[in-house]
């Protein structure tokens, strides 16, 4: 079947499966997408596995084991276009929290099969290891953006993905600013757009799950948060969640911690 349709592959590294699940959560589009491509490798959904090369490869998860450092190279060689999906794949995700602590804290048991249990001291983004054609942010990604990127890749055009901040999306949505009106801590001003500004619409501050926007201006936000009475430990916690390894967030956290010591 499907021999002349473009081949789509989905690969997983250290992750929660949420980003690839977003594809199966496209209930209205799934069968249409499946009709346009040949789903050649997608273990969560199918027993069938066809060898590459693949026209479009989606990669979820971060690099955390020595074997995975090699596996991603092989996947790159077999993929024409390679898109990383989600915070894990684009910034090391929540697993990057290990990057800042003594890994010995997590070490206690020695296993009998070291080839499968070795782990690296760091959790890193896919783009730290191989060239990536497009990075889609979010923890999880927005499924409509995922469909857009897939379509763009299949048609050989540039994906239409907005690059502004969550703040812009709040304005568009007509949500009253939770920081100004209620003094809530919010990372909206520095967070990459894409979710549609969900959190403020539910009466809470953004916690940055889409990661930093391209021109994130962190210092004024840290000052603003301190001005609202948010403790330094809590500002640092805000910067170190699902995109803790993204450079602007990591730098800002170090900055906050440094000024407080």
């Amino acid at each position, binding site marked *: 079947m499907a021999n002349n349709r473009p081949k789509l592959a989905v690969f*997983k*590294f*250290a*992750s*929660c*499966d*949420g*980003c*690839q*699940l977003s594809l199966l*959560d496209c*209930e*209205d589009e*799934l*069968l249409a997408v499946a009709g346009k491509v040949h*789903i050649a490798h*997608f*273990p*969560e*959904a*199918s*027993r*069938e*596995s066809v060898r590459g090369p693949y026209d479009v490869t989606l990669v979820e998860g971060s690099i*955390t*084991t*020595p074997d*995975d450092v090699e596996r991603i190279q092989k996947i790159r060689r077999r993929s024409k276009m390679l898109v990383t999906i989600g915070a894990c794949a684009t910034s090391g*995700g*929540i697993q990057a929290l*290990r990057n800042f*602590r003594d890994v010995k*804290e*997590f*070490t*206690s*048991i*020695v*296993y*009998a*099969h*070291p080839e*499968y*249990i*070795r*782990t*690296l*001291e760091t959790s890193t983004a896919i783009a730290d290891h191989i060239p990536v054609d497009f990075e889609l942010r979010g923890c*999880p990604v927005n499924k409509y953006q995922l469909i857009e990127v897939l379509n763009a890749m299949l048609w050989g055009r540039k994906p239409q993905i907005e690059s502004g901040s969550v703040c812009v999306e709040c304005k568009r949505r007509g949500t009253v600013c939770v920081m100004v009106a209620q003094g809530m801590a919010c990372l909206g001003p520095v967070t990459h757009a894409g*979710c549609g500004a*969900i*959190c403020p*619409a*539910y*009466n*809470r501050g953004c*916690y940055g799950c889409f990661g930093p926007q391209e021109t994130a201006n962190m210092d004024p936000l840290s000052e603003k948060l301190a001005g609202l009475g948010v403790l330094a430990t809590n500002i640092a*916690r805000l910067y170190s*969640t*699902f995109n803790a390894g993204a450079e602007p967030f990591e730098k800002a956290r170090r900055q906050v911690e440094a000024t407080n010591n």
Partner: protein
Amino acid sequence: MKRRTIKVDELTRVEGEGAMHIEMRGDEVTDVKLTIYEPPRFFEGFMQGRDYSEAPDITARICGICPVAYQMSSVYAMEDAFGVEVDGVLRELRRLLYCGEWIESHVLHVYLLHLPDFLGFESAIHMAKDHGETVAKALRLKKAGNAIVSTLAGREIHPINVKVGGFYRAPTKQELGGLLEELEWSLGMAEEMVRFTAGLSFPDFEKDYEFVALRHPEEYPCCEGKLVSNRGLDIPISEFREHFVEIHEPHSTALHCKLKERGMYFVGPLARYNLNFDKLPENIQELALEIGLGKTCRNPFKGIIIRSVETLYAVQEALRIIKSYEPPAVASVPVEPRESVGHGCTEAPRGILYHRYELAEDGSIRHAQIVPPTAQNLPTIEDDLRQYVTQFMALPDSELKWQCEQAVRNYDPCISCSTHFLKLTIDRK
């Protein structure tokens, strides 16, 4: 003696990464291993030093398929620690959210992950060629479940509206009312799902399992109750650690959980159903009996029927909650952190999910323990494979291999979940 090996290097249509290895000599099964090679993820370590209020959002990231379960077990554990009870409408809303996740997760498993085995297809997408209408209807039902979660809590994967004490914002009547039409349709569809799955053919395979689930005096269990089993276990969740123990098997990056006194046990839809049949609404009990399911089911392959029964229950329960909904005066009750220990145990789609936290006076987490359902089922899954292969030895390799995969999928294993908590050797570069 003739040696035979059945090997699946990458288990498919499960969440996460694992392999299966079975060895036989003559008529004897000599080795069965489910190797979990999913990279280790240090969640329990990461939780140390974080604020109690961060637990629902951080632990959600253990699993993209059942984030609500992680959020619920963590908020219940924190509220237990701080001596807070969330009741009335807020409790109903939590139940509604969980219904959404049960529907979405069960329908995903029944139609997209498990049914292709029964009908002999590689995937639901292959299956859609011949059964287009069935797959389309299944997706619509799944969407109705997802819509509950995203309406109530912002989005379907890693919802953003759950907090210790309740919600950040309670939905309006209109918002929930908007779900009614699809849920009314879903009621009919879910009944069809029960009848359809009951008509599939099942291998003749039964075992005398020890089933473990929550049991609540008034309702089919979801977030609260005691832990009970068909062999006399009857304990408050706070005694979990006195009765269950986690063991490290060398071939797996997941810990296996066993009952200290009796060893392996079974959690998930079958266990819930067998231990709580009497708590299902009358019409659902009648339907279950009518289709020949009986009050107790010991054939794990029939999990597909029970997931369908629970889907119907969740749709019906969601409708009940939405129809009687009046927005609460406040979206959450205040909590006051204190030095304490708290336990939470809720019924994730795949079975009981236990959380335990030790907290410092300022509400920061000193220690976290999380026991996901799949880790509890792993010894039972391996044992099923051993017995299954012994019983069906005569089948040709390719058929036996596929049926073994199906036997693993009976449990809807979530391998990502089961490896979240490892402490490991670090390979320094």
